[in-house]
């Protein structure tokens, strides 16, 4: 159990804190970007989280759901989320406007073990909405670039139009301190200049991986893990240096409602970040 409690409302962890939508705009047809600030300024500045943690967001009348925090703690004050319209809560979120109020609780979950990753090579592999939690890591690495060695990014999407933060990532390719490779399964625009193929076709592009000194962070749709894990094992990256962040149904975020239970652990307390060893050790993770 590695949760460090940092509650907004210590007397009642279920009590949502009002937060204001500062900016929102579409990233793709069904994904929107939300920038949020906790309304109480003191609480907004005191809100501490680590990369890979999540928060519960709520809309009055629609309910509450867990969302990965996509911003980095290295830029405090504002919280960012990439949200796909998929259910009741997200539909209600999409109907809101800038300056509207939502509820927020958190941060929850273990997050990525940043202290362990410092000084190492970082290989980020993401597909689709997997960008939501991993953008936090990427921005953190870039903001603290001298604390990490190589930073390698492999990002896959179905089509160019479905690549979340496409322009940002294309810009990142210009950076010399980042090895950034992008792929789409299918190019329906005929204007895509990057790789075409699934995200695993990007692996041959990365050279000279020093596996003992590499942490790989992976997030994507369930189908992606099997193939990506195979590639990472081929690279000889140790199983406990391959980290994944998983999605589960959650109604509380604090280990009470039971929905995210896997084996004898709760994704909200012991996860959502798990190692490849955890995946082998415990059933049902992926």
């Amino acid at each position, binding site marked *: 159990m590695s949760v460090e409690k940092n509650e907004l409302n210590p007397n009642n962890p279920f009590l949502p804190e009002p937060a204001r939508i500062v900016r929102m705009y579409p990233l793709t047809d069904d994904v929107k970007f939300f920038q949020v600030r906790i309304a109480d300024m003191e609480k907004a500045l005191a809100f501490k989280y680590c990369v890979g943690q999540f928060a519960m967001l709520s809309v009055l*009348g629609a309910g509450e759901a867990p969302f990965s925090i996509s911003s980095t703690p290295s830029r405090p004050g504002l919280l960012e989320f990439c949200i796909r319209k998929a259910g009741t809560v*997200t539909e209600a979120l999409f109907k809101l406007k800038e300056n509207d109020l939502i*509820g927020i609780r958190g941060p929850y979950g273990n997050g990525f073990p940043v202290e362990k990753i410092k000084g190492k090579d970082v290989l980020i592999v993401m597909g689709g909405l997997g960008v939501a939690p991993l953008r936090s890591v990427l921005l953190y690495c870039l903001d603290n670039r001298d604390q990490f060695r190589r930073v390698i990014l492999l990002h896959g999407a179905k089509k160019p139009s479905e690549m979340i933060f496409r322009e940002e990532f294309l810009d990142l390719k210009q950076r010399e301190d980042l090895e950034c490779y992008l792929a789409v399964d299918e190019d329906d625009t005929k204007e895509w200049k990057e790789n075409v193929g699934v995200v695993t076709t990007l692996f041959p592009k990365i050279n000279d991986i020093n596996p003992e000194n590499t942490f790989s962070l992976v997030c994507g749709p369930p189908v992606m893990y099997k193939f990506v894990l195979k590639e990472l094992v081929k690279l000889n990256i140790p199983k406990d240096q391959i980290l994944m962040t998983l999605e589960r149904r959650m109604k509380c975020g604090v280990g009470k409602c039971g929905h995210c239970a896997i084996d004898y652990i709760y994704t909200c307390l012991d996860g959502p970040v798990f190692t490849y060893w955890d995946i082998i050790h415990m059933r049902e993770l992926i």
Partner: protein
Amino acid sequence: MRVIKLSKENLFPFLEVISEKTGLWAPVRKPNSGHVFKEIDDFAQIDLDYTRTILPPKKIFLPPSFNMFKASKNNYEEDFSHVSPKILFGIHPCDIHGLLIMDRFYSYVFDDPYYSKARDNTLILGHSCWPDENCLCKSTNTHIVEEGYDLFFTDLKDSYLVWIGSSKGDDLIRVKAELFDENIAEKDIQNFIQWREERDEAFQTEINFSAMPDLMELKYNDTLWEKLGDACLACGSCTNVCPTCNCYNVHDKPALGEDSSQIVRCWDACTLENYSEVAGGENFRKKRSDRLKLWYTHKLQAYISKYGKPSCVGCGRCIATCPVDINVKTVAHTLDGDKVDSFWNRFHEEVRK
């Protein structure tokens, strides 16, 4: 711990004086169905001659459905209306152990105020019991209690031995100390020893719980689970009646025509189909057998690995309740290699034909 004596004719006078200002809950017989814990307005309703209530006492602390918040646009008002001072009388050792497991669970890392406030406001007055064919509490070692109660009444035919388990329990005794006898005679001790021996011999069912974590692991892919999946009705009854099942759901109940909502928390069950379904339709446990595996992992394996004892307290409610014979007893016996002539074995054969 201090033990004192109460003669049987003094029980109701005692309950009467302590429940003057506090709601008294006790087992009551419900015609044609069984016993239930109910708020008492007439002592004649109390029926201590019972084995198990239909629902465990968890319903008193976290009702099947209650409001967490009354919410308007930017204001969430906490709603603790399910919390009121209560005395829970007549609760058996297995259910006290159930509450101890709940206590640990609801305070783990984050404290759940909806549970802990209700728990802090309830006095637990336990009562001894006699096993029937479905009681497993000797196997789970929950047929005796050493903590988790304020007072505990052991029924020795003419009188009670009353165990004082807390400072609050001691306060209750002091309200009407003259009803109690401080002197426990040698004969009372002999009676107690005899009662305990006879009670311990009355158990008809045994499960080797310490073997279960390994067997769950080894038989994870056993055809047993397929048989259970075929027969299970996914009705959620086993979870509703289990004293250590805690899963719940939360939903908003918007008020018509107003900008306000009630945030409602209600019991959920891991055996229900949409339990693990996330937005967008991905369901991590679509198969009934997978959901049953989760339930039995929690009852027979997970807690044992973590705390050295099962999260099953041996109350026998799943045995008494499941319409298709899927319960801790039949599953554990099958895992242990016994040939169990159970509904689901026969049903599976029928289905496979």
